[in-house]
């Protein structure tokens, strides 16, 4: 048996949580560094994962398969392919970065980091699990730390936001649970092995596929979030502390897309084709609508939150199109958006820590005062609006070129969606202008420049987005075989 690297990646944060919990009360710095250590290990392991990964095959790698509840045919089944490896890396990276960014947390420090590590544990688990039961367990565990992280360390309306997030997502997962149970009983012998279920997908009846796909879809759609199930997102983001927003936008939203790529699409291919046009329409609406609504925002963080709705729309469009290029675009967008929006939220947090406001109109001209911060912010803003040379461009371009060519959706949907490119430029530039450019607002005379620790958190993200933009092979090496395989399963 080989080294169970995935188990180590998943469970190290859990061990870390326990370690933080047994620290004596008030040992804040110890809690900080302990959790830093326990989030560094999965990051280092993820580098091994990347190095060991074989990009030429779509087969599951690093597989761990142990019987868990034999009477129900449930296994402890972990594995990684080209779809999950980038997400595991992203999760490890963003968790590590977020923990550094959380060093400023002052109240109930121990609990905060304990919950944070629990969150990392559950996210890692979701991306590594290959048994639906296990997948569901991780998926649901994730709600708990998230609920408390928003509800305790959040802003003024934290209770409202936390409950809304919790209930909304729970409603989604209940439908997913219905789907899981239905699949379980539909197959003979009963199994919850995802790979096995995909393998048998050709035997599922048409109607069954349509109904169960919809159940899974709703479960995942709330998380993405797909328009019109998105309204929990801005509330959650506005109230959540910075690092939690980073994880929320950077990783949690991707879990929805990941779920579709991993479960619903390959498991119910007929439904995927059947629903292509409605899903593409939802994607199109999200892109345009999200951009319009972003334009109207007065709060910096809310603007970035709504921009996520728009950016996730690209993923829905790419999924609906069912081509290799568009699916690659989806993968690129998942990774790229995680990096870019993660950085955006970190940067919004930087200014909020100093100014104690996020109201766009309250700023103005501060680029003169904090040039480095302004430069870094502009860089990620440009990435976000899809400037060539950065990762956002590759993902948008692949999504569009793949969708434009797709036999499953209508071309006008794509043509309207591409308008998002113009609208995004509009709201990003408007934001940059209102905050950084124009006459200097003397109220911010004492604003201090971004510090070393904060720069350290965004630098790896900046390097990644440029690296992928200039040389996309660093990412497509991992994903292409798996994506080809998924497309082959769906479209035959």
């Amino acid at each position, binding site marked *: 048996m080989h080294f169970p690297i995935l188990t180590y990646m998943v469970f190290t944060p859990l061990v870390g949580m326990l370690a933080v919990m047994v620290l004596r009360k008030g040992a804040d710095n110890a809690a900080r560094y302990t959790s830093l250590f326990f989030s560094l290990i999965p990051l280092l392991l993820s580098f091994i994962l990347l190095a060991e990964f074989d990009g030429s095959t779509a087969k599951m790698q690093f597989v761990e398969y142990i019987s868990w509840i034999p009477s129900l045919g449930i296994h402890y089944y972990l594995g990684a392919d080209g779809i999950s490896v980038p997400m595991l890396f992203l999760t490890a990276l963003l968790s590590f970065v977020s923990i550094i960014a959380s060093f400023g947390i002052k109240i109930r420090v121990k609990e905060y980091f304990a919950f944070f590590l629990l969150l990392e544990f559950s996210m890692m688990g979701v991306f590594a699990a290959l048994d639906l039961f296990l997948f569901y367990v991780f998926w649901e565990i994730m709600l708990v730390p998230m609920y408390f992280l928003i509800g305790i360390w959040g802003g003024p309306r934290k209770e409202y936001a936390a409950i809304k997030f919790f209930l909304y997502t729970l409603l989604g997962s209940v439908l997913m649970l219905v789907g899981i149970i239905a699949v379980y009983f539909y197959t003979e012998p009963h199994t919850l092995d995802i790979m096995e279920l995909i393998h048998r997908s050709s035997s599922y009846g048409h109607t069954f596929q349509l109904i169960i796909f919809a159940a899974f879809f709703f479960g995942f759609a709330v998380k993405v979030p797909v328009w019109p199930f998105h309204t929990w997102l801005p509330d959650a983001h506005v109230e959540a502390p910075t690092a939690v927003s980073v994880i929320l936008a950077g990783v949690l939203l991707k879990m929805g897309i990941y779920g579709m790529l991993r479960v619903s699409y390959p498991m119910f291919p007929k439904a995927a084709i059947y629903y292509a046009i409605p899903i593409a329409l939802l994607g199109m609406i999200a892109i345009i*609508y999200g951009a319009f609504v972003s*334009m109207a925002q007065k709060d910096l963080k809310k603007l970035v939150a709504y921009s996520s709705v728009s950016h996730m729309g690209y993923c829905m469009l790419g999924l609906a199109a069912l081509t290799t290029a568009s699916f690659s675009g989806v993968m690129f967008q998942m990774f790229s958006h995680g990096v870019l929006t993660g950085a955006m939220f970190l940067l919004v947090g930087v200014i909020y820590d100093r100014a104690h406001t996020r109201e766009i109109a309250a700023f103005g001209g501060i680029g003169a005062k904090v040039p480095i911060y302004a430069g870094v912010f502009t860089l990620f803003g440009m990435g976000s609006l899809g400037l060539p040379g950065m990762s956002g461009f590759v993902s948008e371009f692949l999504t569009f070129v793949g969708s434009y060519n797709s036999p499953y959706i209508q071309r006008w949907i794509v043509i309207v969606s591409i308008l998002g490119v113009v609208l995004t430029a509009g709201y990003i530039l408007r934001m940059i202008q209102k905050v950084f*450019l124009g006459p200097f607002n003397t109220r911010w005379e004492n604003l201090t420049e971004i510090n070393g620790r904060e720069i350290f958190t965004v630098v790896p993200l900046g390097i990644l987005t440029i690296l992928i933009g200039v040389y996309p092979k660093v990412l497509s090496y991992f994903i292409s075989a798996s994506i080809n395989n998924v497309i082959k399963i769906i479209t035959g």
Partner: protein
Amino acid sequence: MHGPLWLILAFPLLGFLINGIFGNKFNRVTVSLVACGAVGISFVWSAVLFFRLIALPPESRIYVEKLFDWISAGKFNAAFSFYLDPLSALMILMVSGVGFLIHIYSHGYMGHDESYARYFSFLNLFTFSMLLLVLGANLLVLFVGWEGVGLCSYLLIGFWFTKKSASNAGKKAFIVNRIGDYGFLLGLFLIFVTFGTLNIAQITEQAPRLLASGGILVTIMTLLLFVGATGKSAQIPLYIWLPDAMEGPTPVSALIHAATMVTAGVYMMARMSALYMLAPLTMGIVAAIGALTAIFAATIALTQFDIKRVLAYSTISQLGYMFLACGVGAFGAGIFHLMTHAFFKALLFMGAGSVMHALSNEQDMRYMGGLKKKIPITFWTMLIATLAISGVPGFSGFFSKDEILWESFASPQGNILLWIIGVITAGLTALYMFRLIFMTFYGESRVKSHIEKHIHESPSVMTIPLIALAVLSVIGGYVGIPHLLDGSDRIGRFLEPSFAHFSESAIEGHHSAGTEWLFMIISVIIALTGIYIAYKMYIAKPELPVAFAKKFKGVYTVLYNKYYVDEFYGYTVVKPFIKLSRIMYNIFDRVIIDGSVNLIAYITEWTGEVLKWFQTGYVRHYIVTFMFGVVIILGYFIFR
């Protein structure tokens, strides 16, 4: 012919990185040396490659260099590769050459600016992007440069970002360009779907086979690309960003307006000539838009008082000529004019910068006058550029403009109407340019008294680039002397392999040399008339313009306010757009969508509230309820 081509790009990119990261720690001279050196080396290397290319026989003047496979997924594949042929060789030479002069000039002009390093790093990035655009072997690499110059224009136009107007102008440039890019992207996708590649050489080769001449597909394709070109090259209806681009430092205006950025659209169309030649309808539209833009912008230029604004509208007008040339299939003439225009327009802008430098940044020509003796080098070089742009025989603009005018009539796509518009524009050009010269350098000084005593000629680091460009503005035309004047039209023959051409059968009956002479003479006469009118109005009888403005108040006001186009867009596009976004958020998102979510939550809660009255926990309540139930059920069975 051995590259490497990437070296041309590497130096400006390196300069950008060095000055961008460490620039603040360097002193000014080091920053300048890095920036100018980077572009200088790039220019030298471009020149080496250019002459190596020329040394080859015409049919083998193509060199492709692939760096790596860039984006590939499924059927899509685009390499990061460069392409050197006569067209791109000429362009890199011009971009790096004129760019180099502008860099040197900037050392003087921006010498006192506190964000010196930021300025030069952006300038390098701009040059890099433009070179990338020109060298790109496929449309996707071209698009990277295309977006790159858009970004740099944003950064440089809004360079003095604490000025609200500057940051507005930068944003406007970026967004208007993005609107054009929307069309360009759609064109790109359509091309990919049709050809299965974005490689320009392959598209060019396959186009006649895959596309029916005059077919709907190629027409839409070329129109979409053209939309992108109108954005980048400031044509109707997307020209509005360019006059505002004057908010940037003056050398930036020279760079944007002369050697880079605005020429990108013309270059792209010339590059894609194989497609355009298959779409006569698009060609007609391009020619019409070009001609209209040329005359439209020229009329606005007549009434402006801001020296840079006159030049800005002049640029739009001159770009109109280049589009006109492309529209009638005279791509060589278009590129020729692009080149001569780069020389004289860069000179004019930097001259204007030199004037402003002398006058403590005064831009209003009403507060100039009589500067001829005080800043002689600026005056003489600007005069040369003005003669060139006005199309006075012997100067570079004459040759290139005359070729366009002739083709606008003689080409199979041309007609007399296009020629008439072109010639009138030529007259207007001479008029507004000499108006500029006369108002600035002649007559009584109207300079504000406190500035008057500080007037001085610019340092030689600024005047030497002016002189260099003045020389080029004169001799630059002699590479393209038409056959009519016993020339050999060397540039035309050099560029020929890069373009698609009309088939022999399309060119019906050659026009006689006599006709060509006649047309040329008419256009010269009209240009001279323009100069004469300018002389009459601004030197002989300075009271005339005011009288005119009074007499034709309506027309004058419309022109002075630039036909109110900005206001029109404001009311029809920008305002409704912002309003719509507010409605979508405040009403649709908050009330309808989120309202329904909360409503469901409230209904759930309310249901619970109601039901809880039945769950009191008292056994007696449950017995009473139970009794009622029994009575009702019994009653039902008894009385049914």
